[in-house]
């Protein structure tokens, strides 16, 4: 791989700034709220460098909100989000955009835009009014398309692609931004199972082969357990558990976080935890004789 696609790993050059953490990205005692509606209070999260961190939790637990705060889309009402030891809101917008990329859930492909043009827009934070399209931009766009397998679609219109192809194009755009940190908000939503795996494989590749730090919000607990190197389980705006999936995913944790009775077995393919929800009958019985069932399950 050429030097061009390797993200800048050097971190902040400014030595005068006190670094409160060793990791590049963290949330420090943040309170997150939309207007008056508080989603999370005094939440602290560390994103380990070079990890593939996945945030899981039930609907409305604040996982997307946390991702919005980490990507400076949402300003914490209290506390701060730190990037390379600096408060993220105080940094120049383009500088943050060269360090931290975000693939949001909803993105709009402009009418009549081609794949190459859309991917090229990821170069914006590296450009200026007198430096609009360098040879470097050209090369990075080509490489981003090649990495995501959309190079042969370069001249096609984005509107006419399938959902899976379109998601790859958006990921290519985020890659063209060349950020060492990449945040993805439910990148597999609306995709069929084959394309879900396809996108997750691509993420794993970006993490393993290029050493990028990835943070993703995922709905599917089994996907999360299989792909994450670091898992953060959220419920009601609080971190219930965090760590490697093999260490933390247990039936008790799933019940505590999702309120779902289940068995956790070993994934026959990867050896990672596999969550198998209890049968409907078992769960109905559980509701009638909760204590008794809990005792037998635990044994």
């Amino acid at each position, binding site marked *: 791989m050429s030097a061009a696609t390797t993200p800048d790993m050097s971190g902040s050059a400014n030595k005068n700034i006190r670094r409160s953490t060793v990791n590049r990205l963290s949330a420090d005692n943040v309170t997150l709220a939309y207007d008056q509606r508080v989603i999370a209070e005094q939440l602290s999260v560390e994103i380990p460098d070079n990890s593939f961190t996945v945030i899981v939790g039930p609907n409305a637990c604040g996982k997307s909100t946390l991702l919005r705060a980490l990507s400076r*889309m949402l300003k914490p009402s209290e506390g701060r989000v730190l990037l390379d030891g600096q408060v993220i809101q105080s940094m120049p917008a383009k500088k943050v955009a060269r360090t931290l990329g975000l693939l949001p859930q909803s*993105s*709009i492909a402009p009418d*009549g835009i081609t794949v190459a043009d*859309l991917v090229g*827009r990821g170069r*914006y934070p590296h450009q200026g009014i007198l*430096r*609009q399209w360098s040879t470097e931009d050209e090369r990075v766009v080509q490489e981003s398309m090649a990495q995501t397998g959309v190079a042969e679609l370069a001249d096609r219109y984005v509107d006419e692609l399938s959902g899976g192809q379109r998601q790859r194009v958006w990921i290519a755009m985020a890659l063209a931004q060349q950020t060492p940190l990449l945040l993805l908000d439910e990148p597999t939503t609306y995709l069929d199972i084959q394309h879900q795996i396809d996108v997750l494989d691509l993420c794993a590749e970006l993490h393993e082969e290029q050493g990028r730090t990835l943070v993703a919000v995922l709905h599917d607990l089994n996907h999360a357990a299989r792909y994450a190197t670091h898992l953060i389980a959220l419920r009601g705006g609080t971190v219930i558990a965090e760590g490697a999936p093999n260490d933390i995913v247990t039936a008790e944790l799933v019940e505590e976080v999702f309120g779902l009775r289940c068995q956790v077995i070993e994934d026959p393919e990867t050896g990672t935890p596999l969550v198998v929800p209890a049968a409907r009958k078992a769960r109905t019985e559980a509701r009638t004789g909760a204590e008794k069932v809990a005792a037998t399950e635990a044994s």
Partner: protein
Amino acid sequence: MKTNRAVRTPGGLSVRLDVRALTVVLLLLAAALAASVVLIGTGDFPIPAGDVLRTLAGDGDAGQEFIVNELRLPRVLVGLLVGASLGLGGALFQAVSRNPLGSPDILGLGQGATAGALVVIVLFSGSAELVTVGALVGGLATGIAIYLLAWKRGVHGYRLVLVGIGVSAIVTAVNGYLLTISDIVDAARAVVWMTGSLSGRDWDQVWPLLMLCAVLVPLVLANARELRMMEMGDEVSHALGVRVERVRALLMIAAVLLTATATAAAGPVSFVALTAPQLARRLTRSPGPNLLPSLCMGAALLVTADWVSQRVFGADQLPVGVVTGVLGGVYLLWLLVTERKAGRI
């Protein structure tokens, strides 16, 4: 299909050119200027195009010089500037709202300016200069009202359009009331103003427009790349490092100023702001706000419409707004049908 070319210098500077868009801009500019020359030659004393050019170069006879430089040139210049401002203002509104219907015509900025002008005409029987000021104030006030009502956490597609339609309905009612209480002379004057007309425009209208365009056009174009990113939604553009709120506020202020000033100078010439960006986009076939092509298209459209209104219907009798209204109305219907077929409304 691939029309983007990058021009690079050894010093590391690079500029991206869309060849097709550039060609469209040059052709539209040529069309606008050609139409202007023809328009200057049109009237009670027809002047051949050759003589018009010679006179403009300072080489005509005294009579032609008076007609061209004092009577017709200012009118044509106002037409060009008003068209350009409306085209650019419309492109900005449509790009920020991400909706072809989010243009000043639909949002009621024209009605707002009309209300300001009517207040001056009906309540104070004010001079032409005061009418201009009234229209400017009315347009700006409407722009601020829409901003305050629709801008909570950014514009969301049809929200801006719906708020604009509401504001527009209220202001139209006020305008109707003002007309019913006016006497017949004021009412006739008001109606001509409300249709949008270029007749009787002189150098006094040219200078403020020219100065405003000289400031705002470069300012807007300097933010074109940011606007292009904002097409992909607030989240993506924010993640790319665009300061979305700031750019949006700046561009909206510029768009309101451009539209309000154009309306103050020529009356609410309808549909130019709506149609120019869409027509320009169909010619360049390129995504993005198409700011410069829209500006040139607006200028070409308005001058051509003015020529049609003089040529086809004779003398100064038909205000240019009638022609743009008919053309734009047909276009709006077509737009609604195609948008409906595409499932967007």
